């Protein structure tokens, strides 16, 4: 049971990270490769600030969310939007957005690596985690917060996309950009807002993971990127519920592999999942075929 | 079916009960026709009646639900699209589809790039001729995005005839052209016919179809609603209603 709870914590971290990526990719069709760098750099700014003053957890998280949202919105404004405007087709834009994201991601990563000499960094906070015991299972308060945030935001986003007017417009863009444009949906504005929300989620994930682990390395974001891709593909692009499911399945599978002492194979789980799902069920567990944009 | 004359020659192309369904949409729904060599055939039909889809099926680019195609006695229903071109059927597309980084000359030559070596050599020798006939020799070094839409259509046309096909399928070849240009293209079609190229044309311009075609078909909702000489088809009540709209009888 303890293992399941640990896997749930890991899954919640994956989920927080993957949700932003899934939201942007599943709706406005942008696979943002700078998401990992946004995640890392938000936590890094938190680290810089707390080197000067010790802050409570909530303030640090707020800073990270704000930095993430700003970075992501800037990426959209300065890179992706111009690419989309210039490209002749969605297909042509796809690869340039991928490359643009890779280029953008290199900048914060290089800055953080330079400042920290590539060693892990953490926060100085008034907050200190305590170990709680619930039904005989141990979990840290940080772990608790992560699980609650992950599940809460995951379910919240799913419901919001299904029910709200703006959520509907977003989903419609994911399925048929031309028609929605004709229906008077302001695509650039919606894309800008979506990217900012996704960036905020990346910042939240960055701050919470740093609290959980005590410190993260500048390269942490890159590793999560591929895992997030595996999660989104597994769950089904365009389905938030699928992303939630995918995150916990991946975390469960990885925990299992670790538990069996096959530690060196743990990375193969996400890579193998990507391969397998794309071949066997390309629309993912909960995705619908039409939603898949190629 | 209005007229079915018994001809002694074997048909060049036979379309047998072809249907193309996209989910619930029956874009083409049971069409049969026989195309004899040495004529220009035209297809009329309102927007969305399935004309382009029929051309797509004939060239095997669009998967079909049922039916068969026979060209010069060979059933090619199961052959891949690339084989259709090599058999001697060439086409143009409704939207201009040119390689954007390539010159006009290169785009035209693409029409014979995947045929046999000897045929390619022969065609390469004639490429200037073909460009000249379509009035694009002077601009052969330009790229498509430097040309007007009408000029782009001519390049599309040239690419289809450079391989000297025996059957030429044209999807709205004169869209975006003015009336002088249309007449010019119509003249070119008659010339090509004299050179032995049978043609099958989809067009919206009724006047041009009547002037150019030897025989017309009319389509609506994926089915043939009339066939015959141009005047017969244009006067056909079902056509008047479907294609020209009610009360537009005086148009033809």
């Amino acid at each position: 049971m303890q293992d399941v709870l640990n896997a749930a914590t890991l899954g919640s971290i994956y989920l927080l990270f993957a949700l932003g990526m899934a939201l942007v990719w599943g709706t406005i069709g942008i696979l943002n490769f700078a998401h990992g760098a946004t995640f890392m750099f938000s936590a890094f700014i938190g680290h810089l600030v707390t080197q000067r003053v010790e802050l409570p957890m909530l303030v640090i998280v707020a800073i990270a969310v704000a930095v993430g949202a700003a970075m992501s919105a800037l990426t959209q404004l300065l890179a992706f939007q111009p690419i989309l405007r210039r490209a002749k087709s969605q297909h042509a834009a796809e690869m340039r957005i991928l490359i643009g994201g890779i280029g953008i991601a290199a900048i914060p990563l290089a800055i953080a690596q330079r400042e920290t000499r590539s060693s892990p960094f953490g926060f100085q906070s008034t907050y200190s985690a305590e170990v709680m015991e619930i039904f005989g299972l141990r979990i840290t308060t940080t772990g608790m917060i992560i699980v609650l945030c992950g599940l809460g935001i995951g379910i919240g986003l799913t419901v919001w996309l299904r029910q709200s007017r703006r959520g509907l417009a977003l989903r419609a863009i994911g399925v048929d950009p031309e028609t929605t444009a004709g229906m008077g949906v302001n695509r650039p504005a919606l894309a800008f807002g979506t990217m900012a929300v996704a960036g905020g989620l990346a910042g939240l994930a960055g701050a919470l993971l740093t609290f959980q682990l005590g410190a993260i390395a500048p390269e942490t974001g890159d590793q999560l990127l591929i895992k997030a891709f595996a999660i989104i593909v597994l769950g089904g692009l365009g389905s938030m519920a699928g992303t939630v499911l995918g995150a916990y399945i991946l975390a469960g599978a990885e925990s299992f592999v670790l538990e069996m002492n096959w530690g060196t194979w743990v990375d193969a789980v996400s890579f193998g999942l990507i391969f397998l799902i794309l071949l066997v069920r390309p629309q993912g567990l909960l995705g619908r075929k039409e939603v898949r944009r190629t | 079916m209005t007229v079915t004359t018994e001809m002694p020659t074997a048909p060049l192309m036979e379309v047998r009960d072809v249907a193309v369904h996209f989910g619930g949409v029956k874009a083409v729904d049971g069409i049969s026709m026989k195309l004899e060599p040495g004529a220009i055939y035209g297809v009329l039909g309102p927007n969305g009646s399935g004309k382009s889809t029929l051309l797509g099926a004939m060239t095997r680019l669009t998967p079909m639900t049922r039916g068969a195609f026979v060209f010069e006695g060979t059933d090619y229903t199961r052959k891949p699209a690339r084989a259709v071109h090599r058999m001697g059927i060439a086409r143009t597309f409704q939207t201009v589809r040119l390689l954007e980084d390539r010159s006009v000359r290169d785009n035209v030559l693409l029409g014979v790039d995947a045929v046999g070596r000897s045929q390619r050599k022969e065609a390469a020798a004639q490429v200037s001729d073909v460009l000249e006939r379509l009035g694009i020799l002077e601009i052969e070094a330009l790229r498509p995005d430097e040309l007007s839409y009408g000029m782009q259509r001519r390049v599309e046309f040239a690419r289809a005839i450079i391989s000297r096909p025996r059957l030429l399928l044209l999807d709205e070849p004169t869209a975006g052209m003015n009336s002088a240009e249309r007449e010019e293209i119509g003249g070119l079609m008659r010339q090509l016919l004299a050179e032995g190229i049978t043609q099958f044309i989809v067009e919206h311009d009724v006047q041009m179809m009547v002037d150019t075609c030897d025989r017309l078909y009319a389509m609506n909702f994926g089915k043939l609603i009339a066939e015959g000489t141009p005047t017969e088809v244009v006067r056909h009540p079902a056509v008047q209603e479907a294609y020209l709209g009610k009360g537009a009888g005086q148009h033809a």
Partner: protein
Amino acid sequence: MSTWYDMNVILIQTTLTTLLLALSIQVPLRFGVFSFAGVGAFGIGGYTAAIAMVRFEWSTWPAVALGALLAGAITLLVGLVVQRLTGLYMGMATIAFTLIVSVLAVNGGDWTGGAMGLYGALGEISIPQLAVVVLVVVGLLQLTELSSMGRRVDAVRDDPELANAVGVNVVLYRRMSFLVSGLIGGLAGAMTTLLRTTITPAEVNFHLVIVSLTAIVVGGSRSWVGALIGSIIFVWLPTWIAFVAEWEKVAYGFIVAAAAIYLPNGVLGVIKDGWHRFRTRDERARAAAVAEEA
């Protein structure tokens, strides 16, 4: 001249091997196949050649040939498996393949030397020999860029349906692009490994994918000349500008992002466009005059 050569031997060597790796990614891209399996082939070729030399005491060139052939065969098989995927999905499946190669290398035990990698593959490859191999590869690729073949390849990439309609066997061309990508990638891996005498699993990573991809995007993705330009820029830039040396990775990020936004066809594309405009200035004037009349 000869002192310049002596001083820059390593850079010249790196430029040539980077070019080979970049070409292994570029070939499928030229055919409209978004495959990064060439980097996996790099790993397979490198390990195969090293194992042949270290474990079986093969001599240099047979080991290189075995590496290239095995990489080519495996990449072709991967291609057959993933060929119906499109766009980003193909890209990520092939990245997953590449990373699986590296996980396999970690877990290969004595064969691959585990996480430490293989040492002592003392190949005898001189720079002139490397240059000759690169020349042969580039010469063969040039044939696929010329006249009829070049047009067919362009059509397969830009409009596969049109390519089919003019009689090109699109599926066959795309499969062959996997084979060629694997052969070149394997060659690059084998030669790089034997020149350095060692290979580790950590080398076959996501970063290697990014290096080769960005070299192509910045240089130009349509021709080997673009791959050469990109390889030269990324290998030599730090030595040209001291400022860049210090902020190398930041500059790298800016260059890649700028290329993605402003130069869809890379530096080579700009040169080609300029040359085209210069050469056709009269025709364009005439076409404009005709359009004016009409």
